[in-house]
């Protein structure tokens, strides 16, 4: 279970406070969506969960399975099962996708005290998971994200997620830059990972993603706090009314 308690976060280099007392609980087995206007702190929340250094937690706590993760390095969090699908995945020139997947999978396995994957086992696994995501195997021989289309980048993110088998998946604007077909493939990939031992946090602007990834709960984030929580129908309501209701409301 993910528990975020009274989280206050500012930029490390500036005084600007972005999250101002955010509370959120996502139990295992559930998918929660975070929606909100631009600049409400959605991406900040994603980065802070993953442990990015550019942000400073000034108050509150983040517990994953009852344990605070605030002091952990990003790789330790990854080993604990935290996975962030990036809105803008980084390009790594010269590093083939397969190399990256294998290095990451084995790094996580090692930290979890599991045996590393042998080459045949790894290849079998990648081939199966890539096929399910409609990823051409040839794409995995190219350097990570270099020259990828928006759709390829997002599918590659979901493939990484499938390979690392995280228990907390944070998807940051995974629908951005996707056409309808790609959206369907990516969503199917995410849905395939839904399960009783996995919590998911889906961050998005738009309701359309939630037609494919149907959430158990929807939270509206604005002014650094959760303003409202509801069922999946809340997303539909927001789609009609927009975020205007929250725009003027101070935290």
């Amino acid at each position: 279970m993910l528990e975020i308690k009274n989280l206050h976060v500012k930029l490390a280099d500036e005084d600007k406070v972005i999250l101002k007392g955010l509370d959120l609980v996502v139990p295992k087995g559930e998918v929660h969506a975070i929606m909100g206007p631009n600049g409400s702190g959605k991406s900040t929340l994603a980065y802070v969960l993953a442990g990015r250094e550019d942000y400073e937690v000034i108050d509150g706590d983040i517990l994953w399975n009852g344990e605070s993760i605030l002091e952990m390095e990003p790789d330790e969090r990854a080993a604990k099962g935290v996975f962030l699908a990036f809105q803008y995945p980084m390009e790594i020139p010269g590093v083939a996708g397969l190399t990256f997947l294998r290095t990451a999978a084995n790094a996580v396995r090692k930290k979890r005290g599991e045996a590393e994957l042998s080459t045949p086992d790894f290849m079998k696994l990648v081939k199966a998971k890539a096929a399910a995501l409609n990823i051409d195997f040839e794409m995995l021989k190219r350097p990570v994200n270099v020259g990828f289309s928006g759709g390829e980048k997002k599918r590659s993110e979901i493939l990484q997620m499938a390979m690392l088998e995280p228990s907390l998946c944070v998807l940051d604007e995974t629908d951005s830059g996707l056409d309808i077909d790609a959206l369907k493939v990516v969503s199917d990939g995410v849905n395939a990972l839904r399960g009783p031992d996995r919590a998911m946090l889906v961050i998005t602007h738009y309701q359309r993603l939630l037609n494919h990834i149907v959430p158990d709960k929807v939270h509206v984030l604005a002014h650094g706090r959760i303003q409202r929580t509801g069922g999946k129908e809340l997303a539909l309501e927001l789609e009609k009314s927009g975020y205007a209701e929250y725009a003027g409301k101070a935290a």
Partner: protein
Amino acid sequence: MPAVQETIEQVRKIDVDQYKYGFETNIETVKAPKGLNEDIVRYISERKSEPEWMLAWRLDAYRRWRAMTEPTWAKVHYPKIDFEDLYYYAAPKSSEGPKSLDEVDPAILEMYEKLGVPLKEREILAGVKSDKPKVAVDAVIDSVSVVTTFKDELRKAGVIFCSISEALREHPDLVKKYLGSVVPQSDNFYAALNSAVFSDGSFVYVPEGVRCPMELSTYFRINERETGQFERTLIIADKGAYVSYLEGCTAPMRDENQLHAAVVELIALDDAEIKYSTVQNWYPGDKNGKGGIYNFVTKRGDCRGRDSKISWTQVETGSAITWKYPSCILRGDNSRGEFYSIAVSNGYQQVDSGTKMIHLGRNTSSRIISKGIAAGHSQNTYRGLVSAHRKATGARNFTNCDSLLIGDKCGAHTVPYIEAKNQTAHFEHEATTSKISDDMLFYCMQRGLSQEEAVALVVNGFVRDVLQQLPMEFLAETQKLIGISLEGSVG
């Protein structure tokens, strides 16, 4: 491995013993006094029972060296070297090495551990002196079969591969014909010094039409350990011959000699090809920049024949100071020169390295791919010359120099010289400088890589084009080495 003991026994019986004695005796017993004068040069030549012409050649070099001054144009800074305070003959390490691994710098041992160097090999690399017969140790490393089958196969193919001292005794005409023909005695200060006092090195001759049946690498790994500070290498590929040669070792080597001034000459005749790879990982000094090897090397290849090709590949991670410009003289028509380089500097290392591509013949081509990675407080300079002489019609060059900075206290510099005296020359130069971004590291770490693993992964991606040029067997080791060399460079 159960076969090991048997192997050791086998080795004892066969010709590796000759290697042992041939190599060890003279350095264990003699040491010339400090300083350099004509008597020392004569002494060296005499100890090695060299022919008269060789002594005259050395003395000539010595006199020229006396008249020269140290070059200062490189972007490296170091206290002035007192050349009268050095030993020029016999390795002091033969008597003064540590008695066991317990006496060796723990940092070095830790590195062996990470590289996965076998225990026995670690002792040799660290210069540990033990009473156990050395031959057995060598056998454990590379196994007897390698050494003996190597020798047999090479002999069958007609390839001459021996120490340069041996070549002077057994094949004096070949040595006389080619020695100094690419790097003349007075070429530069360090080459002149090397010509006067070189201790030993390797000699390779591949006869006409012969493709050397194996990489001259594994064997060399055994030999390399005892080569001194003034190493001299001469490789000749006769018409239509091919040879691939690898020097060096990924594991760091302990060495008492601070100054190294090697000379390597390559000669490729018509249709011949030489591929020369280096992995250099000498002691870079401690984390405060104290100590470390000064490496002043002159390496040059002469594409003497038409359609010949010389390719240099280097991975430089060690030494406090690296001054090194493996070059190609493209004399023969349609000849081709290549230079692939990875230079990693960390701590207080200073690297000034690059290449020269001298286009003399018609339709010659060259390619330069240089990847410099600077971390810590290090300075990493690429210095290169591409020139086309008046008759070099149709000369072509492509140069790509990329620098990667890690941290904000290091420097990367690119100093390309381009001279085209022929209108038809076509030269291209590309250069980039980039930093390992926090975004990239964060992305990798989010996927479970530690910071050091992330740096190693990104850097290995950065140098991939060059890594692909290395002999397969060294690829994995070298990738690991690059990662280890950059440990502690971030955060």
